[in-house]
């Protein structure tokens, strides 16, 4: 069974208390339509499991098939450097038809980011290294497509449906 090789750390984008009993890590791609669907499921899980859940998102842009995936990942990371990672993350997943360069800029403006800084950060070596690092860690952990979820450290096979993720996290059938 594939296992998460890169433990959740302070450098991760997380929602939820660090001491949460249930940990869900997603490797995703902003241009992947399945990841867009999965984001809705994640929100439902967050709403139902509340402070019992720590959710972590890491990048796995399949840039060969999704030409906007890498710039979109850069945009989320750049927004993160201005403390708006999750706002950009959700915006991108809710507007997957608007991931071209002009749209990314308008997202940055809508979030009232410093746009000059956003542009330079999105393409900076630091951000690119972070994305590449996410991908490498994901590959070593057995990421096998997007999205790939790890529940409490183990890869979730069988899809990103609500019931499957709850069962993987809690061992309970809903």
């Amino acid at each position, binding site marked *: 069974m*594939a296992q998460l*090789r890169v433990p959740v750390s302070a450098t991760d984008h997380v929602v939820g208390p660090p001491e949460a009993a249930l940990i869900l890590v997603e490797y995703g791609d902003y241009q992947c339509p399945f990841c867009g669907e999965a984001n809705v499921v994640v929100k439902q899980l967050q709403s139902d499991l509340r402070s019992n859940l720590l959710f972590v998102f890491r990048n796995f842009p*399949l*840039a*060969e*098939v999704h030409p906007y995936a890498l710039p979109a990942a850069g945009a989320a990371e750049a927004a993160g450097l201005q403390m708006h990672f999750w706002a950009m993350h959700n915006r991108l997943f809710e507007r997957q038809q608007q991931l071209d360069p002009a749209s990314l800029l308008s997202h940055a403006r809508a979030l009232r980011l410093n746009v000059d800084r956003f542009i330079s950060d999105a393409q900076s070596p630091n951000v690119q290294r972070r994305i590449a690092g996410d*991908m*490498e860690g994901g*590959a*070593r*952990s*057995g*990421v*096998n*497509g*997007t999205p*790939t979820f790890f529940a409490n450290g183990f*890869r979730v*096979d069988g899809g990103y449906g609500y019931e499957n993720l709850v069962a993987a996290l809690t061992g309970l059938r809903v």
Partner: protein
Amino acid sequence: MSLLPAGTKAPEFTLSLAPEQKISLADYRGRNTVLVFYPADWSPVCGDQLAVYNQLRPMFRDHGAQIVAISVDSVWCHAAFARDRKIHFPLLADFEPKGAVAKAYGAYRHQDGFAERALLVIDPAGTIRWSYLSPLGVNPGADGILDALESLKAKV
């Protein structure tokens, strides 16, 4: 018949890469080879699996490895699939006699008429150093491949 285990000499093969182009395992002598058997072009799980390997080519390259995938589909089918999915590594056609190479590696599903989902790492001398048979419906990812390549590097 079960998948050839580590320590076995990798059976030689020559398969079509394109209508007028053939590739032999011997062409890869001197490098590590990641050999991927998969059931069929276009089936959703294979698509994901190969898309991930396609994206991870730089990591395989860093480990001195070339990746090659084999199914029973024809060269024309492979060409259309590779173009559609932008796959930049060889897809070889184990087409005639059907599945002969998959059979030689113990990676053929006689009941279905296509290859298993199987992964092998072959060293520069042509010896299988790792092999893994995945349940058909489970996409195996690259963790096992990368671990095998790492341990090969450690032994050099």
